[in-house]
Each structure stands twice: as structure tokens, then as C-alpha cells.
């Protein structure tokens, strides 16, 4: 147990260091982009004087190091500052979007992870069968298409073509093509509204996890302890689930963590298609304005997501491995 706590402490420490480096890289890259917030927001017709006044007002006349140090000292005290574009408090601005993103990611994960494990175990059990081939072809096809394409196909099939057939409300489609949620949307309604984006993302992430589950299990089937289980007369399904799966968990957990991270940081295209107010959209919008504080804050959240999910995966790998949990 103390080993795990030590690992967690050490990795969190390294995580903070990683965040610092990421923030420096992001700030540096924004600095290198041509144009700044004032030029963008005031447009081409702005005079030199107004642009300069705007810069002075926002402190852009200060050297990069000062501006970065200023941001860093704020961030260290959990004050993320205000958006340049709309002067709103960033923490407030982002927290709503973040909870929307987490909701979509969580909903997708709740469908995709069990589905991928289930399909993967079955594919390992009936490897090289017709079922195995079908699942592989289907999942590979679905990740081979661009996400927006999958999204539009789903919109076409489950929304546009079903207009007037809605079993719940009058004359609507089965599922709405727009996932426009607001703060006072109820939980049940939310699930219904984000079903199509969640389904799209499920199709995108399932293949990777399912194929890793299948490969990790099959990889173990040649081990002596699997042969032993066969020679003990254990049923095939039990061999896969009880003997192979527990030993295959580490690689599977890692792939799940990577895909969960993707669900949080990489879904901007799907958010745009369904007009879903998530974090990805806010990130892209504010990069356009060179709204540095908002971009920095979002980037910190994305980086922290990767760090925490990887840490969780590593801890779970330790916890599920008796050799590490119960040393001699």
C-alpha cells in the first residue's frame, strides 16, 4: 500500500512539473503566432492608435517573461484570470463547458468500455470465426472513417430520416441532430440529447479497446498456465475470463486510459458537428481570438486529464497484479 502511495505522490509531483512545461510551451507558441488579440478583435480597419491603446490596456506592451510570470502566479493561486474576449471569469466560463465535456465523455465511456471488453473477450473466445471477422471488420471500418463523417451518417440515419417517427414527442426525429444542452437541462433529457454524439464517439473508440482486449488475451493463450487450465478440463469460456483476462488487464487498462483521455481532449470535431457546448469548442474559438488566458486554462485541463488518467492506469495495473501487490 505504501508503495502505491509513494508512486502516486511521485507521479503527482512529476505531473505538476509536466503542467509547468506544457504551459510554457503553449504560451511560447501563442507568442509566435502572427497577430495578437487586439489586432484580431479590432479588425483590419482599426487605427494604429486604437490597437496600441488596446494593447496597453491588456498589458501586451510588457515583455513575454513578465506576462507569463503574471499568469503563472495567478494560476498557482487557482486564479485563472478573465477572458480577454468577453471579460468573463475563466473559471466560471470553463467549469460549465468542462462539466458538459465530462458528461459526454462519461456517457460514451459507460457504453464503450463494457462493450469493447465484451466484444473483445468474445472475439478472443471465438477467434478466427465468422463473428471474430465481422467484429473486426465492423470496428475497423468505423474508425477508418473521419469522425465527422460517422457523425453525419448517424444524423442522417437516426435523425433526418426518422423525422415524424419520434416515439416520445410529436413529429420530431428519433434523436435530435443538435445536442444543445443548457445548464437547466435535466439529466434524463441530457442523456437523450447527447445520444448521437456519444454513439459517434463510441464507434470511434471501441475498435481500439476491443482489439487490444482480443490481442492481449490471445497473446496469453500459448502460456503454460493456459495449457494447464485446459488440461484441468476447464471450460473454454472460463479459461478466457478467469485465466487469461486477469493477466491481460495491464495493456487493456492502458488502452482504455488513452481512449478516455481522447474522449475528453480530442472530441472538438464531434462537438462542432452536434453544436455541443464542450471544452473543445471553447478552446478552438478562443485560439482564433488569441485569447491567451482561456487557451492556457483549457490546455492545463487537457494536460492534467492525460496525467491523471495515465496515473490511474498505472495504479490499476499495480493493483491488479498480485506480484506487485503481494511481494514475496
Amino acid at each position, binding site marked *: 500500500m505504501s508503495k502505491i502511495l509513494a508512486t502516486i505522490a511521485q507521479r503527482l509531483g512529476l505531473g505538476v512539473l509536466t503542467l509547468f512545461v506544457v504551459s510554457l510551451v503553449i504560451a511560447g507558441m501563442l507568442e509566435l503566432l502572427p497577430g495578437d488579440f487586439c489586432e484580431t478583435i479590432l479588425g483590419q480597419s482599426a487605427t494604429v492608435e486604437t490597437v496600441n491603446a488596446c494593447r496597453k490596456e491588456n498589458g501586451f506592451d510588457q515583455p513575454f517573461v513578465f506576462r507569463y510570470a503574471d499568469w503563472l502566479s495567478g494560476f498557482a493561486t487557482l486564479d485563472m484570470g478573465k477572458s480577454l474576449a468577453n471579460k468573463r471569469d475563466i473559471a466560471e466560463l470553463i467549469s460549465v463547458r468542462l462539466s458538459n465535456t465530462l458528461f459526454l465523455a462519461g456517457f460514451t465511456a459507460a457504453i464503450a468500455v463494457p462493450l469493447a471488453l465484451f466484444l473483445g473477450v468474445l472475439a478472443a473466445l471465438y477467434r478466427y470465426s465468422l463473428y471474430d471477422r465481422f467484429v473486426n471488420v465492423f470496428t475497423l471500418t468505423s474508425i477508418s472513417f473521419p469522425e465527422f463523417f460517422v457523425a453525419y451518417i448517424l444524423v442522417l440515419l437516426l435523425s433526418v430520416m426518422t423525422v415524424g417517427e419520434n416515439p416520445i414527442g410529436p413529429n420530431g426525429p428519433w434523436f435530435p441532430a443538435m445536442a444543445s444542452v443548457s445548464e437547466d437541462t435535466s439529466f434524463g433529457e441530457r442523456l437523450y440529447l447527447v445520444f448521437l454524439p456519444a454513439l459517434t464517439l463510441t464507434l470511434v473508440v471501441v475498435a481500439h479497446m476491443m482489439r487490444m482486449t482480443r490481442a492481449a488475451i490471445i497473446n496469453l493463450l500459448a502460456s*503454460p498456465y493456459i495449457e494447464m487450465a485446459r488440461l484441468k478440463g476447464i471450460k473454454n469460456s472460463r479459461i478466457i475470463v478467469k485465466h487469461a483476462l486477469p493477466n491481460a488487464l495491464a495493456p487493456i487498462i492502458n488502452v482504455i486510459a488513452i481512449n478516455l483521455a481522447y474522449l475528453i481532449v480530442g472530441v472538438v470535431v464531434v462537438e462542432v458537428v452536434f453544436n455541443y457546448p464542450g471544452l473543445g469548442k471553447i478552446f478552438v474559438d478562443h485560439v482564433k481570438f488569441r485569447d491567451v488566458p482561456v487557451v492556457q486554462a483549457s490546455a492545463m485541463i487537457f494536460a492534467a486529464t492525460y496525467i491523471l488518467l495515465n496515473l490511474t492506469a498505472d495504479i490499476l495495473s499495480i493493483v491488479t497484479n498480485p*506480484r506487485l501487490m503481494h511481494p514475496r
Partner: protein
Amino acid sequence: MSDTKRGQKGDILLEMKGLKIEGRADEQWIEIVHGVDVTLRRGEVLGLIGESGAGKSTIGLAAMGYARDGCRISGGEIWFDGTELRSASDEHLRKLRGHRIAYVAQSAAASFNPAHRLIDQYCESPVQHGVMSRDKAEKDAKDLFRRLRLPNPETIGERYPHQVSGGQLQRAMTAMAMSCRPDLIIFDEPTTALDVTTQIEVLAAIRDIVDQFNTAAIYITHDLAVVAQMADTIKVLRYGNTVEEGDTRRMLAKPEEKYTSDLLAVRTYKRDQRDRPENEGPLMQIRGVDASYGTVPVLYDVSFDVYKKRTVAVVGESGSGKSTTARVITGLLPPKAGEVYYRGEVLPADYRQRNKDQLRRLQMIYQMPDTALNPKSRIRDVIGRPAYFYLGLTGRKLEERVRELLRLVELEPDQYINRLTTELSGGQKQRICIARALAAEPELIICDEVTSALDQLVAEEILKLLQRMQDEFDLSYMFITHDLATVRAISDEVVVMQNGRVVEQGPKEEMFTPPHHDYTDLLLSSVPEMDPDWLDRLLAERAEMARQGRVLKAADN
């Protein structure tokens, strides 16, 4: 234990007729077992013996109606208690396996599932086959653990496989095989991976338990001395054919086939001891070496000498520090204290600080020729590399030297020089490793268990080759081994190590003549002999000693 469904002792339980098995190689099926007959009666133990590639394990598994991936049973009949297994359904076979026919694998460490506790793995067969409830199975397990003399039988089941030593795991696996009280158990080299000292315990435990439950068994091994202790009848196999079959005592006393007598004669090769050369200091001295892996100490105050043209055997169980000593000498593991002197001068502790000449004089030959040779290299390069690196030979001279070395290790140069290292047998690979060591023109060669991965007849050829090379090139050997027959065969002096310490050392004849240090005694007395009564005698002697208060304990127990 008598059970009505089990029938009478002496009834035929298993009968394989004209068994043929094919293995897949390069996209085609090749027959590897060519029509072997096996008959086994209830309560009887049959020993299957042969070298690697003889088909022993394959035949053993076929008795369960099982063929490994890449193998298939292609002909013959397998009758088990009235059922023909080749035509039986998968479901029928599954119900037989573990329940009425059980299997004990060579490496218990690899064959226990690392993710589950021993007790869970033990209970799986009886519960899944519906033989008994989990509670009853657990009680039964503790009873069997006790009968198999496992330490802490009440709690050992709570452990994971990696928390239990090799010898104990092998006994736990025997208990697991017994869990459904099968009619037949296949023991597939159950002691091959164990130290001799641990082997005894496992052999005794297996024999007792098989006797107590009147279980029939097929005991597979390459070691005739081991099978002599276990089997009522022995079947000698070679290249998938039966060489000879018969009663154990008869076969040991009067083998009918030459191959059987060759197997019996193995381990009898012996060279006389040569004393230390007079008027000459030692070639290498190891003085007071302490070493550790990280913070874990592994060697304590190790000292011994190696003289020119002499062989020092370093013996001990696994984990005794033999190979670590070799790592210190070669500079791979700088010691915490102590020095290695070579011709009276201190060798730098780290190999990176040694000059080319110091490196050249000390060469190594490893246990696993498979992993010690680059599979992508050709033999010309493997042997040519040290000759070029240390001696600067190039072009025609290098070619000539490589051919000369190949002839020395008795491989025809034209036939082998352009082969890949993977295109050789195990014995041939070890010959290449010897040639590679010789290519550097060394003075001292460290041989780390060089024969233990080889079949016994091949191993003996290698020992003889090493001996010839020593005579021809005035070489000194430091011979690391756990096999006392090897020590007897080639050494002049013996160093016995236990738990990182040298417990006894001296000339060979002295070491093999009593009185011994207790640990040396344990090692020596644990080597199986070609005598069916050896194990009984030994166990009786040890019981007698235990009554007198002298207990010999292997590190494993």
C-alpha cells in the same frame, strides 16, 4: 482408498495402439511419433524416457487426448477405461481431463496462473467438475498439502505462486493433480527444473501420494536415474519410436539395446584429478569478494584460486551465488569489497576499465547456447568477430582461422561456415560457443552451466571436447555447475557455495571422500543413482540422521 467405480488393480486402464502424431513444420505435417504402443494398468507407474525430440511429452499428452498447438494425433487408437479418446467429443474429453486424468507440468512456476492464489487454483478442478464443494475441496487441499510435506499446509494455499519456491510449487501442483483423485496422472519432467536437493523431496512426495491413492502414472523424464526410483516399467523412446520396454530392474541390470546402455553409461565419464602445478603461482585469485545487487547482498567473502591448466568446479544450488561470482570476475558486477588478481596483478573491477589483453584472456561460455548466439548472425561472423577484434586477423587469415576453429570443435567447415546460428542443434550451438571463446586465444574460460541445457549424451560429448581443448591449449576452466556428475567428470578442485558463501573447497578426490561439510554431504547424497533402491535407502538414512539430531536442509524447504 478403494472405490468401486475404479475397478481392480491390474486391470488395463490406458492402452494406446499404433499412436502416430504429426507436427507442423514449414507449412507441412511431419510425423514425429511413428506408431508407439503403450499399455498401463491401474496402480502402475510407467516411465517414459528419452532425449529431447524423442516424443515423450507428446505421447504423454496424447494419453489425455490432447495435442499441443501445431501438433495433431494422426493415427492409432487411445483407449482409456473403455472409451476411445480420439473419437470422443471435446466435451467428453474436457470432463475427463483434470477429473480422471490429471497432468503435472515441468515448470510449476510457469504452469500456475500468476493471477490467482494456490487454493483457488487447487479448488477449480473439483468444483468445476462437480466432484466436491469448495469447502470440502479446501479441507482436502490442506490434507494433501500436509501429506506432501509442504510447510504451513493450513495457510500456504493463501499464497500466490510467486510467493512460493520452485520445489514447493511442484508439490502443490502434484496436490492439484490429485484433487479429483484421478485414475491416471501424467508427470511431465516434474523435477527437471529443480535443484538435486529439492528434487529428492518432490520425488519422495510424488511416490508416496501415488502409492497411497493407488493412482496409475506416466512419468516422463530424460533422466534414467530418476525414473528408476519411480517406475515399475520403463519405456525408452528415440525419434518417436520405442527402443525398448521392460521391467525397471531388468532394464537397468540387462539393457537389450545399445542406446539404452549408452543412456545407462552416461555420467560415468571421469578424468583423474591433477594436483596443483608445483613452482607456479595461481593464474587467478579471488580474494574476499563481497557483492550485492542494489542493496541486497549476494556474495560474502568469496575466495578461491584457479591454477594454469586446471579446472575448478564451482557447485551449489540455484541462488548460491555461482553465476554472480562469474559476473564479478568478468567485471560485469564490480564487487563491494575484495579483489580479483590475474597473474598476481589486480584486475580492474569494471570491465570497461580493463584493456583488450585483459579482456581477451578471460572468455565465457554460457548455459543457453540459443540465447548466447545472435540468431541473425552467420557462423563465420560469430567466430570471426573475436579473432578480428582481439587478434586483428582479416581476409584470408581470418577465414583460415575460423575454419581451423570449426575443425577443432568437430564441425566440418565447408558445411557450417555460412550457416545461420539458428540452423544448428543445441549441441552444435554449444560447440560454436566454444569455438567463439577459443577464437580469442584465452587463458581462462568460465563455463557457466554449459551442459545443463543439453541432453545427457550430447553433454558428455561437450565435456570431452572441453577436456581435449584444455589439454591442447593449456587452458584453465572455472566450471560453474549444479550437477555433481559433471564435477566428478572434469574437475581438479571443487568450490562448494551456499547462500553466497564458500562452505568448503579442496581437491576433487578429497571432496568426494567423507567426511564432508554437511552441505556438501547433502549435495552429494542427493544425486540420483542408477539403482531402483537408491531413494528408499537415502530416505531411510536421512530419517536415521534426523533421529540423531542431524538435519540436512536444502535452501528451498
